[in-house]
């Protein structure tokens, strides 16, 4: 038992922190928001130069060969800056699905290119009526993160998991104006689109859900920590009534309450990451807990950030809304906090006979 980063993990965290602080600036993020929602230069640096999209892909398949803890570290640091990257779509969802459920050939063909950032993939949960017969996919997927930019989709249909290319005949992709412009959605419609099945769809879906939920939780942790840090800085600088507003208990107690939940979110995220990596029988519980708690924490902290900044926090110019909108998006993606808690209620045995 050693519930702290190893030296290597601490080094990865330091490197990632410095990388995003230097490159994921508000100017660059805002430029990406006005375009595809991806800072392409940042994505190139993250993937081609650092090779980090393959953080959890084994080395013999073109990756770095690390695990969920390191993936969570990267997602946390990216989340701290609301980085405009397809980190969730490609690294959190599509790659784990292919890794867990793809054939040897599919993995050899796709994983090295995904790790290198040559391909951006996303994950599309199709509507309940969607179906694939004889490799032809019909139906729609309504909210596909970074879907208008992705080159490849892993599509979850009720009876399987399929790979679909963005330029396949019969697909139409409609970019949706999205509240969170750093992770915009697209709607996909499939009209007899050529779809290539993953060999183990159940494993693929489970991996995408677990890794995706963890990546969102870690992003939420980084975002919530940033909301706290930036609001603490502001409360020390902003003078009213001849005092720093951070000297008023009405303000400092709210900041303390933010720290109380942020620290719990940190325990939750790294507990879940460890539980998956160690194959613990608590892993499913831990992922539900991390997703629910970290997303609630982020929404709370981002809301407090706006309130404690006063009027400036409500302006487009200030970054508070980037956090507030990402927090909302994180909470809805892959199941709301209430939904995850209901899963926990069931896992706890509330439905067993008394």
């Amino acid at each position, binding site marked *: 038992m050693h*519930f*702290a980063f190893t030296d290597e993990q601490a080094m990865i965290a330091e490197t990632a922190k410095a990388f995003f602080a230097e490159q994921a600036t508000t100017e660059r993020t805002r430029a990406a928001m006005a375009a595809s929602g991806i800072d392409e230069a940042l994505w190139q640096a993250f993937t081609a130069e650092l090779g980090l999209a393959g953080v959890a892909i084994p080395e013999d398949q073109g990756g770095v060969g690390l695990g969920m803890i390191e993936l969570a570290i990267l997602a946390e640091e990216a989340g701290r800056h609301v980085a405009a990257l397809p980190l969730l779509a490609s690294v959190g969802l599509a790659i784990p699905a292919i890794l867990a459920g793809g054939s040897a050939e599919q993995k050899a063909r796709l994983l090295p290119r995904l790790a290198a950032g040559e391909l951006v993939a996303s994950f599309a949960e199709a509507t309940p009526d969607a179906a694939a017969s004889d490799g032809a996919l019909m139906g729609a997927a309504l909210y596909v993160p970074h879907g208008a930019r992705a080159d490849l989709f892993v599509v979850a249909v009720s009876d399987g998991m399929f790979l679909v290319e963005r330029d396949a005949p019969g697909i139409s992709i409609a970019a949706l104006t999205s509240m969170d412009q750093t992770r915009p959605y697209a709607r996909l419609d499939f009209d007899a689109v050529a779809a290539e099945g993953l060999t183990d769809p159940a494993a693929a879906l489970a991996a995408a859900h677990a890794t995706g939920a963890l990546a969102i939780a870690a992003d939420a942790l980084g975002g919530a920590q940033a909301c706290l840090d930036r609001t603490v800085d502001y409360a020390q600088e902003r003078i009213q009534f001849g005092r*720093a507003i951070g000297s008023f208990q009405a303000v400092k107690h709210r900041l*303390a309450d933010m720290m109380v939940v942020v620290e*719990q979110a940190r325990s939750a995220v790294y*507990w879940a990451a460890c539980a998956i990596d160690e194959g613990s029988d608590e892993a499913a519980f831990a992922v539900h807990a991390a997703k629910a*708690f970290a997303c609630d924490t982020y929404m709370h902290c981002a809301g407090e950030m706006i309130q404690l900044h006063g009027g400036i926090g409500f302006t487009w110019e200030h970054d508070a809304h980037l956090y507030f909108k990402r927090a909302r998006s994180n909470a809805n993606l892959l199941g709301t906090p209430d939904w995850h*808690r209901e899963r926990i209620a069931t896992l706890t045995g509330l439905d067993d006979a008394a």
Partner: protein
Amino acid sequence: MKLGFSPEEEAFRAEAAAWLSAELNGAFADVRGLASLTEKPERRRDWERRLGEAGWSCVGWPRAYGGRDATLAQQVIFAEEYARAGGPPRLNHIGIELAGPTILAFGTDEQKARFLPPIARGEEIWCQGYSEPDAGSDLANVRTRAWREGNEWVVEGQKVWTSLAQFSDWIFVIARSEEGSKGPKGLAFLLVPVDQPGVTVRPIHQITGEAEFNETFFDGARTDAANMLGEPGDGWKVAMGLLGFERGVSTLAQQMGFRNELDAVIAAARANGAAKSPLIRQRIAKAEIGLRLMRYGALRMLTDAEGGKLSPSALTYKIQWATWRRDLGELAMDVLGQAGETVSGHDYAFPMLPNLFLYSRADTIYGGTNEIQRNIIAERALGLPREPRGDLK
């Protein structure tokens, strides 16, 4: 980062579990599963002695003082197994968790040799003399005085909320040793025997009907001059060191008690159908998550402490658990409904869950109120400006 335990650690777990199970199903079956701190005090003393005899009382302490030199992981494991086996709350928890570690940190070799082994053997029970009628959250405002007479210190004044003083042999007291001093300056940290004519313990009846707390009066109480930790004037430093003590391991044992309380809420909800309500299910799930996050927060705290670092989660832990438990008490009553408001017989003594609802109102007050905790977090962890002091007497 790793959560699992090694095969050697699992072997230690098996050894601890076997011993605990044999005792708590054998000679000490009558104290297994007790929840109240005040029930069966004589048998609880026997249990402290039995733990001491077998070397299971203060497993993390050095062997020289009656401990077992247990590693951090072993301490975690023992705390878990103790609670799993239904071990009762430790009658001497203040001696084990507060007095002992403070003496280890601030005591001389003579003081360690005098005071630590009797704690580890379960022979001397301790309580804490901090709060006073005019020194609650503002702890530095203590008025109890101490002065030197020959080879003794004499203590005069009043302490309040002295939990378990009625069972204790020793009390540690912060008292003003420098006449005319104010605030944190001029205080002394004294170890005082309870059983003497100058000390009077009077129980305080709480909203639960029990009397775990007391008022303790010092009227010319005496203690040997050797029984001061640090020098006269060091009292505040020693006391704050104590409040800052790593409570991670005892915390894990405390959490196992919380686990039992949450299990009782779940059992009640399943029995009366409340478990079907989506709102109750959400609250139970929140409680389940909160309990796990206490565990993992404590493991972070412990790991950081072993590396010589104060974990951020150490500062947030008190408000976290106290608020969690208060919420659980409210959830328990919402699950039980009116059945929770009545009890059979004439004694005003409620069973576990209604008692939890009442008792947990103390959790967010003692050991630093939630409001004081928020000040501590804001000032020490976040670096925000300190509270200004007023000048009213």
